[in-house]
């Protein structure tokens, strides 16, 4: 399989990465090189094989559902580009 220019633009949008029109054909070439490389997987017989979803066979660990952290709002917002009263500020999202 390979991707066309429209698909490159669609993927870029899904990934929320702005792509200039001048970059599209270059990116298309690179993505297609990667897709051509992974194409060989289609020759593997995976009939009846379970997908690997965990690396180490172990039961999912659970912890008590209790508050064990908190009161660190200053720390949480310390690295944010824009904040006000411990809130993250973003461009207006509702009219």
């Amino acid at each position, binding site marked *: 399989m390979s991707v066309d220019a429209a698909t490159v633009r669609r993927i870029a949008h899904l990934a929320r990465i702005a792509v200039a029109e001048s970059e599209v054909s270059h990116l298309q070439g690179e993505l297609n090189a990667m897709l051509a490389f*992974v194409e060989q997987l289609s020759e*593997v017989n995976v009939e009846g094989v379970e997908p690997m979803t965990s690396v180490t066979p172990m039961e999912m660990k659970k912890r008590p559902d209790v508050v064990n952290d908190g009161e660190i709002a200053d720390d949480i917002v310390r690295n944010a580009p824009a904040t006000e009263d411990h809130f*993250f500020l973003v461009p207006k999202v509702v009219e």
Partner: protein
Amino acid sequence: MTDLTSLTLAEARDGLASKSITSLELTDAHLKAIESARVLNAFVLETPDQARTMAREIDAKIAKGEGGPLAGIPLGIKDLFATKDVRTTACSKILANFVPPYESTVTAQLWRDGAVMLGKLNNDEFAMGSSNETSCFGPVVNPWRRDGANTTLVPGGSSGGSASAVAALLCMGATATDTGGSIRQPAAFTATVGLKPTYGRCSRWGIVAFASSLDQAGPIARTVRDTAILLRSMAGHDPKDTTSVDRPVPDYEAAIGKSVKGMKIGIPREYRLDGMPAEIEKLWSEGAGWLKAAGAELVEVSLPHTKYALPAYYIVAPAEASSNLARYDGVRYGLRVPGGSIGDMYEATRAEGFGAEVRRRVMIGTYVLSAGYYDAYYLRAQKVRTLIKRDFEDCFAKGVNAILTPATPSAAFGIGEKGGADPVEMYLNDIFTVTVNMAGLPGIAVPAGKDAQGLPLGLQLIGRPFDEEALFSLGEVVEQAAGRFTPARWW
């Protein structure tokens, strides 16, 4: 003072314990070495004041007989590990000003045991690369050069800063991470020892995530023993990482010098690639010979799905990366590039903040997870991953203790030499190491010789899950036979 930097970690530890040297002396010697080696670009942040403060504190503790297993040992920390109040960037523009209010579990354990932080080490952006050329701080230079040439070579990646700093005697050891070969390949390119532990052995908490089912932290040091000493402090259960395994941490150093007599070593025929350079082939059989001479038994084994590991990796790793890196959106931390709407802000921020390789991988990952392609790519790759893991399980079930392979298909190459036209050319560097991540196994790269141009080459040993000890015992045999390799100082 410079001779202090050429001590091994174990020698320095013994010197500190017997009070023949102080941590402050040792730390100062390394800070001086770092200053005079800036041309290597191994450190992206030097923390001399903090280093001296830590050294003085640990000297006081040692005087009182309270030093831990790493008391006074100066280390470098890959910039992927969050260090409290010390800038941590993953070498990405998108995190250029990030100062974590917390400490990664692995580094916290190193400080608990008395180690001293010299600074933060360069790496490929978000650990995506095999040459340390994708860092927003620019490429790292390998302290090794070809005989009679002054071409600058890459140290490998993504832990290129770690490997370069350890090889150039700028730190006694370094933390590193390995998602597809990022500890072992740079170790092989710089004649250092690098161990990627079993998945779950070290906590991933506080390490900038790349591909969560593959990422694992581990040490790079100058000897097998030093690597074992570091792993003991780095490993251990952490409730903050659900994939961290709750089992005791052995005294890995005790495995050094232990007899390998009767161990069964697999030689996988699928690793004998067409067109493999004769010197790699020679190194491999020499390594097998050393292990045999030490009493190990060599057996030919088959890992039939080997050739599919790299393509499956280039679906699984970007898929996980695209999900992990979704958090960099210009809202809670990191770079923000303003835009008219919130969507424009996200897109502009990520376009500006991510480098070319990261953008490419996030996009391919997004594609293979998108509706209509998930089954054909991602699900199939996960199934192939099961088969790759099964190959190893079958091999271990036949009594094989460890598998010997070359670490890399070539020695270090020049900066700018690879991957310019086709990204896959660079990816092929990890052909021998990536299987180990796919199966979650431990692997060690040990320096084993040099190529015709005088550049170091390494061998890889792959172990059973949680049998890092066998790798240290076997690695020691290789190190004893091959000797140690130090680059001639030109910087």
